[in-house]
């Protein structure tokens, strides 16, 4: 055994190989445990309803259960039960979902609401993100570069709008939108999410713009650029990474938001989060369909998270912690 007491200062700051291995094992064990629910969502989405609720649980596809697209079919279609005679009288099924439905004594009668709800989510998330990032970039530049009266108070006011419980905000918004005819409209939701996201955007972007040296703009202005030209041609290109990261954070917030959506939308502007929990099949919740809807809804976020991993810390702390 090496004499631990005689080791150099360096080896104290650097953990020993054994310590490293133990630390690694514990962290990986936690990560695997934390991943189980996510893996289970994916697995459930490719099970048939009986397989999804079997005891003991079926884990391995092709070994324990036969994968099927039934969950995805049920997610995208509505079906109605028909008599065997009626089904027998129909021409042969032209797609997999129709064939699966007929096997259960049903026929596909039309598309479900999932696609429109998903489209609402996309439109509202992108609309509010673009607005919040444009407004946020302008305001962040203003706060970063100019002496604004009551600057700290204004910045704190912008942040404090995030401290309201969403339900508390929803009461007057509900009344206001009813008066203005914005209830259950995409525009109403876009404006609402913009107002929530703009505080995040201002705080994050101010941090990013603070890091761009003022001298760049000053040099450009000596060369004859106006303040606006310097902003567009010098500051914006420098802030691209920050703006992109901020946009993804705004996008994720709007994509995930549930409280406002469930209280303020019911039909034409409803987004996916309030819709997915109410997907039901015959005789209760259709878990493979719910899992299919959940999987499709989560995949973009998983991709964005991996894309964004270096900026995550900044985003989740409103720019308070920077690496």
């Amino acid at each position, binding site marked *: 055994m090496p004499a631990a007491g005689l080791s150099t200062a360096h080896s104290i*700051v650097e953990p020993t190989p054994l*310590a490293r291995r133990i630390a*690694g094992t514990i*962290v990986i064990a*936690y990560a695997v445990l934390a991943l189980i629910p996510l893996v289970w969502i994916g697995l459930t989405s490719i099970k048939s309803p009986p397989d999804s609720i079997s005891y003991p649980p079926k884990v391995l596809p092709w070994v324990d259960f036969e994968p099927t697209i039934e969950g995805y079919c049920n997610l995208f279609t509505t079906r109605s039960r028909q008599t065997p005679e009626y089904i027998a009288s129909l021409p042969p099924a032209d797609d997999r979902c129709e064939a699966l439905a007929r096997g259960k004594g049903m026929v596909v009668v039309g598309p479900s609401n999932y696609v429109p709800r998903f489209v609402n989510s996309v439109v509202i998330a992108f609309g509010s993100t673009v607005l919040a990032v444009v407004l946020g970039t302008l305001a962040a530049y203003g706060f970063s570069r100019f002496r604004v009266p009551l600057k700290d108070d204004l910045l704190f006011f912008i942040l404090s709008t995030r*401290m*309201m419980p969403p339900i*508390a905000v929803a009461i007057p918004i509900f009344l206001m939108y009813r008066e203005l005819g914005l209830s259950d409209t995409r525009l109403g939701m876009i404006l609402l999410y913009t107002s929530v996201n703009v505080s995040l955007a201002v705080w994050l972007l101010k941090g990013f713009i603070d890091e761009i040296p003022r001298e760049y703009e000053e040099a450009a202005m000596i060369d004859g650029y106006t303040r606006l*030209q310097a902003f567009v041609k010098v500051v914006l290109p420098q802030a691209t990474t920050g703006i992109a990261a901020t946009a993804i954070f705004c996008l994720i917030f709007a994509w995930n938001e549930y409280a406002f959506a469930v209280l303020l939308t019911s039909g034409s502007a409803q987004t996916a989060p309030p819709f997915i929990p109410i997907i039901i099949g015959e005789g209760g919740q259709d878990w493979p369909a719910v899992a299919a809807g959940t999987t499709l809804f989560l995949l973009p976020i998983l991709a964005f*998270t991996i894309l964004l991993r270096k900026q995550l810390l900044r985003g989740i702390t409103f720019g308070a912690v920077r690496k």
Partner: protein
Amino acid sequence: MPRTLNTLAERAAAATPQAVARRVRGLSDRAVAWAFISPTIVLLLAINIFPLVWTIWLSFTNYRANRPNAPVRWIGGDWYTDILTNPDIWVAMQVTARFVIASIAIQTVLGFTLAWLIDRRFRGHGVWTTVILLPMMLSPAVVGNFWTFLYQPQIGLFNYMVSFVTGVPPSSFQMLGDVTLSPWAIVIVDTWMWTPYVMLICVAGLRSIPEHIYEAAEIDRASAWRRFWSITLPMALPFIMLAVLFRGIENFKMFDMVNLLTGGGPGSTTEVASITLKREAFEKWRTGYSSAFAIILFVTVFGLANIYVKALNRVKQR
């Protein structure tokens, strides 16, 4: 370098005739500043402040949103006295407080431990850190909804795994239907989602500690235990406290997960403040009453957050 440029700019400005300077500079800086900042302020005034003021006004009236044409009567501070003397509201506040304290305590200990382990920089720590971070980016509502499936007594994976480890039959306990277990069901999902958040901030805290302090401690022959308690923990404390602040505010507002997992039940064992507010405002349509409750909640979060930030600044200055 910056100084040279500044003086250059000043000299150039001084040398330029007035009319040229105005044309070159275009809009004055003050005009640009206000043009840039005011759209944001206007939006927040319209969608945050105006509603807030309206809520304050409504909280002094008997208005009901489902009867917009009924006469509105000014009733003064009656709702406030009603709420502050209502035992049910205090129960909801206690449920909220217990939930906030339990989940934050667990997440802080677990998150800091994981951060400390990740800071050992084992092979592949970057990849595994990203894996651990995934749950916190997902929609609490959509994922929380799926957890109700994992919590099913007979068919749920959670119950199966617990029974696999402990030997208790999986249908002998109901995570969501039981008075004692359902608060924990929510704490477990919250911990699963948000431990990574605390962890990420703690990793940053640990990395901010300069190595030379550890080297100095080594020269002083401080034990590993001593180094942890007198260097690592105190120096990471501002970061831990920041994580607790953000989690505290978020958990105080908690709605999505509770609404989908238990809806406040069974009985009112998991009825946190947001759920009570939703029931009063959007099920019983007692708009005036719920507005008063909303104001009380806002003042509470705001007050607690301010006190906490003062404490945080004191720790930072040490």
